[in-house]
C-alpha cells in the first residue's frame, strides 16, 4: 500500500500550532489519547518521508541479504548509515535512495543479482563515459527505490581496488530493518561526507548539514585518520574543498593544515558551476584535437538512454526525445558564453589557491 496524496498542510504546521498553543495551554489540554491507525492516502509530508525511508530500508536489506548469499560483501554509504550515526535526540534525517559500495571484483556479479531481482538499470545502453563508476538501478516493486551501486566514490583519483580496500577495512555493523549491514568505519564515513559536499557544493543543504554534524561530533583523531585515508586515495584536495564549504570545516581544515591547492574541476563542483562548465573543463583536459572534437560531439549528442534518464522522458516518446535534443543544443549554445566565463573564473581560483 503506497499513499498517493499528501495532506494539504505544511510539514510542521500542526506541530507549530501545538507549540504555540503550548505557551498558553497546559499539556493536559493538548493531550489526545495514544492512537495507532493504518496510514491512509491523506498523510503529512513528514509521515510520507518516514514511510519512504522505511521502504528504502526494506529494499536495502533485501539486496544486502541477496548479495550476502552470493558471497558479495556490501558497504552502505550515506543515507541510513548517516542517519544512524549522526542524527539522534529527535533529529530526523530522511533519505531518498540507497548507495551501496561493492568490491570492483564483485561488481558484475552484483549487477547480475540486481537484474535477477527485477531491478532495472536506468542507464542500460548508455555510453561508458555517461555511466561512469556509479550504476543507477530502479527497484521493481511499487515503492520504486533508486539504488546506486558504487565501485568508488566521487572525486577519488585512486583505483577502485584501493578504495574498496580502504573503505572495507575495519567496517562497522549497524542494524536496519532488523538486519545487520556493514558501513565503512568512521574515518571513511567522514571522508565520504567531505567528498559528497565537494561534489554538490552549496546546491543542497543536507550534505553540508551532515558534514557540520560530523565535525561537531567526531573526534579530531578520527578526522586525522580521515585525512590520511584521503591522502592514500588521492582525494585530499577534494576533501579539503568539501570541508571548506562549512564554517566549522574551514577551521578544521586550517587546524589540520589541509592543502589549499585545488583543481579547476573541484572548484567547478564545489561552487556549483554549471554542468556545461564542467564539461568544457573536461574537454580541455582531453588530449588532441580529435579527442576534444569527439568529446564535444558526445556531450552535445548523448545516447538516447542518457537523455531519457537525464530529462525524465517516457521511453516510448520519440517526439519528446527529438525535442529534448533540440532544446539541449539550443541550451548549450545559449549558455556557452557564461560557462566559458565561469570556467575562466574557476581556473583563476584554482591557480590562486595553489601556493
Amino acid at each position: 500500500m503506497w499513499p498517493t496524496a499528501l495532506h494539504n498542510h505544511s510539514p510542521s504546521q500542526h506541530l507549530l500550532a501545538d507549540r504555540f498553543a503550548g505557551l498558553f495551554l497546559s499539556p493536559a489540554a493538548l493531550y489526545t489519547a495514544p492512537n495507532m491507525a493504518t496510514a491512509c492516502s491523506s498523510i503529512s509530508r513528514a509521515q510520507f518521508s518516514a514511510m519512504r525511508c522505511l521502504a528504502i530500508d526494506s529494499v536495502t536489506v533485501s539486496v544486502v541479504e541477496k548479495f550476502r548469499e552470493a558471497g558479495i560483501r556490501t558497504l552502505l554509504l550515506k543515507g541510513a548509515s548517516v542517519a544512524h550515526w549522526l542524527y539522534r535526540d529527535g533529529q530526523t534525517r530522511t533519505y531518498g535512495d540507497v548507495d551501496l559500495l561493492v568490491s570492483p571484483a564483485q561488481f558484475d556479479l552484483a549487477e547480475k543479482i540486481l537484474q535477477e531481482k527485477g531491478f532495472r538499470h536506468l542507464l542500460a545502453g548508455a555510453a561508458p563515459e555517461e555511466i561512469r563508476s556509479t550504476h543507477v538501478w530502479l527497484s521493481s516493486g511499487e515503492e520504486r527505490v533508486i539504488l546506486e551501486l558504487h565501485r568508488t566514490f566521487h572525486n577519488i583519483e585512486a583505483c577502485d581496488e584501493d578504495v574498496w580496500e580502504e573503505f572495507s577495512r575495519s567496517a562497522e555493523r549497524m542494524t536496519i530493518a532488523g538486519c545487520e549491514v556493514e558501513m565503512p568505519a568512521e574515518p571513511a564515513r567522514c571522508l565520504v561526507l567531505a567528498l559528497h559536499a565537494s561534489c554538490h557544493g552549496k546546491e543542497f543543504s543536507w550534505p553540508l548539514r551532515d558534514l557540520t554534524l560530523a565535525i561537531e561530533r567526531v573526534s579530531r583523531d578520527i578526522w586525522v585518520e580521515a585525512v590520511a585515508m584521503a591522502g592514500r586515495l588521492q582525494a585530499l584536495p577534494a576533501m579539503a574543498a568539501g570541508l571548506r564549504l562549512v564554517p566549522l570545516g574551514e577551521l578544521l581544515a586550517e587546524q589540520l593544515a589541509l592543502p589549499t591547492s585545488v583543481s579547476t574541476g573541484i572548484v567547478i563542483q564545489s561552487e556549483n558551476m554549471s554542468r556545461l562548465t564542467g564539461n568544457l573543463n573536461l574537454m580541455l583536459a582531453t588530449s588532441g584535437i580529435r579527442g576534444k572534437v569527439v568529446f564535444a560531439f558526445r556531450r552535445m549528442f548523448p545516447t538516447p538512454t542518457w537523455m531519457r534518464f537525464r530529462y525524465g522522458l517516457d521511453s516510448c516518446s520519440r517526439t519528446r526525445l527529438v525535442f529534448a535534443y533540440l532544446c539541449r543544443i539550443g541550451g548549450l549554445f545559449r549558455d556557452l558564453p557564461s560557462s566559458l566565463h565561469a570556467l575562466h573564473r574557476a581556473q583563476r581560483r584554482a591557480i590562486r589557491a595553489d601556493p
Partner: protein
Amino acid sequence: MTRLELRHDRVQWRYAEGDEIVALDLSDSVYLAINQSGGRLWPALVEGATREDLVATLVDAYGISEDEAARDVDAFVASLDERDLLERS
C-alpha cells in the same frame, strides 16, 4: 509484573515529526501512523515496559489523571495486540 515489548521481527519504525511515528508492519507491509502521545509510549515499548510504566509516562508527559492514562494505555495496547505486534514476558 508483565513486560510488554514490541516484536522487533514484526515491525520497523521511524520518527516522522516530533513524537509522531510511522511504523511498517512487516507481516502485511501495512504502514501505520502513531500519533504524538502514542509516540511517547513507543520508546518504552521498544525497550520493554510494564503497563504501569506506560501509564506513568502519559501522566508525567501530559498531567492527565491516572485513570484516564490507564484507559488510554489499555486501548493503545489492544490496538497493538490486534496486529500481534507485542510480546509479553
